[in-house]
């Protein structure tokens, strides 16, 4: 069930210079949220900044007996909203509502034998739970009778510079193949994450699915990569939102349809944030 709640901050630790991990106590949402879904967060009881900020579920915290009790979000401080979140400490309260949006494909609905997770910037955040879920290392959502599929997962993460690789260790300890790329060459491949991905795909074995999250220009390149390598590709968009649940019509993106124009705006918070890359009319998206 989707719900709004005023919840207590359990911790809010700095993972890197401008990157934080906030843990919020909210068992009802923690029990239901799926990999790729998000919640809206804002400090409780203020009107400046006013709007909630969409953050992807990073992981679910559990009690000693394994019951979901809290949700972790990892966020990059960019502007007023995330700066306000960064100023919170244990015991402070946030308003949050969720779980919102759709999830990445899960077993057994798609061919998920070899999944390539492709993250840019702060776009790694949905992928820790995606990987754990695919590998059967953790269960998310209502008790699932899902057979843990036979999946191998690899993870490629591109950032501007090394200090933004906060939490890389969380992925490395899953026992999956991890690669990094930096624009400045301070770690891993020197260059674009999509170029590194192309090299790895060409070396083989080919992934059967690509899941990607990152800034729009990167997702455009990922969509092209998926098409050229003929790998089904899903992208999670980081669109600006006001409400997160479909009433404001601000987070729209152009999605192909059968209308005369060939596309119409869809609400990313409701129809997404995850789309098949081929469903989006990329030519209509203007980069700012």
């Amino acid at each position: 069930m989707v719900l709004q709640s005023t919840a207590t901050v359990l911790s809010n630790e700095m993972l890197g210079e401008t990157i934080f991990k906030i843990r919020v106590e909210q068992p009802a949402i923690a029990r239901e949220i799926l990999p790729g879904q998000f919640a809206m967060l804002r400090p409780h009881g203020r009107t400046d900044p006013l709007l909630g900020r969409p953050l992807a579920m990073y992981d679910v915290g559990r009690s000693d007996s394994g019951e979901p009790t809290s949700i972790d979000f990892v966020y990059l401080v960019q502007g007023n909203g995330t700066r306000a979140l960064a100023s919170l400490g244990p015991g402070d309260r946030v308003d949050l509502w969720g779980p919102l949006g759709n999830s990445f494909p899960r077993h057994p609905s798609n061919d998920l034998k070899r999944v390539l997770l492709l993250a840019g910037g702060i776009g790694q955040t949905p992928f820790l739970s995606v990987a754990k879920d695919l590998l059967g290392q953790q269960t998310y959502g209502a008790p699932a009778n899902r057979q843990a599929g036979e999946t191998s997962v690899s993870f490629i993460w591109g950032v501007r510079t090394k200090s933004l690789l906060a939490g890389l260790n969380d992925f490395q300890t899953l026992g999956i193949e991890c690669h990094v790329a930096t624009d400045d060459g301070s770690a891993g491949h020197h260059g674009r994450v999509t170029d590194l991905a192309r090299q790895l795909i060409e070396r083989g074995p080919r992934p059967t699915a690509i899941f990607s999250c990152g800034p729009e220009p990167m997702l455009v390149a990922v969509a092209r990569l998926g098409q050229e390598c003929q790998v089904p590709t899903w992208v999670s968009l980081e669109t600006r939102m006001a409400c997160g649940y479909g009433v404001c019509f601000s987070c729209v993106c152009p999605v192909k349809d059968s209308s005369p124009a060939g596309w119409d705006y869809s609400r990313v918070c409701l129809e997404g944030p995850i789309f098949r890359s081929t469903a989006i009319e990329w030519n209509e998206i203007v980069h700012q």
Partner: protein
Amino acid sequence: MDLSVALGRLSLANPILVASGTFGYAKEAAPFVDLGRLGGIVPKTVTSLPRAGNRPPRIVETASGMLNSIGLDNDGIDHFIEHHVPYLSRQGTRLIANVAGKTEDEFPSLVAKLDLVAGVDAIELNLSCPNVSGGIDFATKPEVTERVIRRCYESTGKPILAKLTPNVTDILSIADAARQGGADAVTLINTLVGTAIDWRKRRPILSNVVGGLSGPAIKPIALRMVMMVARKVAIPIVGVGGISTLDDVMEFLIAGASAVQLGTVNFFDPSSSMRMLDDLPTAVASLGASSVQEVIGTLEWPR
């Protein structure tokens, strides 16, 4: 406690409504709101033909507020009647459809269409949407306001609410024109036109350059307009603009609003309407009143 109020011919179970464009088509809000408890629902503005709306970015946050330029993104009146009215009209609350015309003729034709639709309890006219470039504003000249409203009034037996823009020099003359045109009530206020600039890029942030300011930042302006119209024009008022707590609701009622609409608060506090309804009876009782109607417009003017 009697919470009921009346807007001319339209009676409401309570004075707390949700504002057009801030509540989608209500279904989206159902996880957070027991729709049947609301005094009424005003869904997003519909137009004669489908409109894609403006390109993103469509919003930008401002100090205790936000600017929007959605641009009337909607699938048109026929789709609205077919796909949204059936759901909206079975929620056990008043459905007030909101329409905007591009021309003076379009308003009465939209109204005439809705006149035939069972389940639509009333019609709100969005006379001035700031986000449609080239759009004509029908609520900045009293003669035009009166004429458009009269033609709508003559096209339907349903109650009519005229939603007015604050972007005028004399709101009193416009509100009086709405009264003369036959409106059952005026809805005050729509958003205030503003802009936001990214100075580093030397560019406006909104694709539409300008947008409508809403949220707590505009509450004092809305409250003043409600107060002024309540003192000078004999027409029921629906107060809207920055309301985010029950205290705000009470201020508008005292200033002279017979009902209120919640707008931007739905974005940042999705279930706020339910908490306001929980607390409304106690607040009214604290004034020694046993009905909402008793407190409306009871502002004591300083001598």
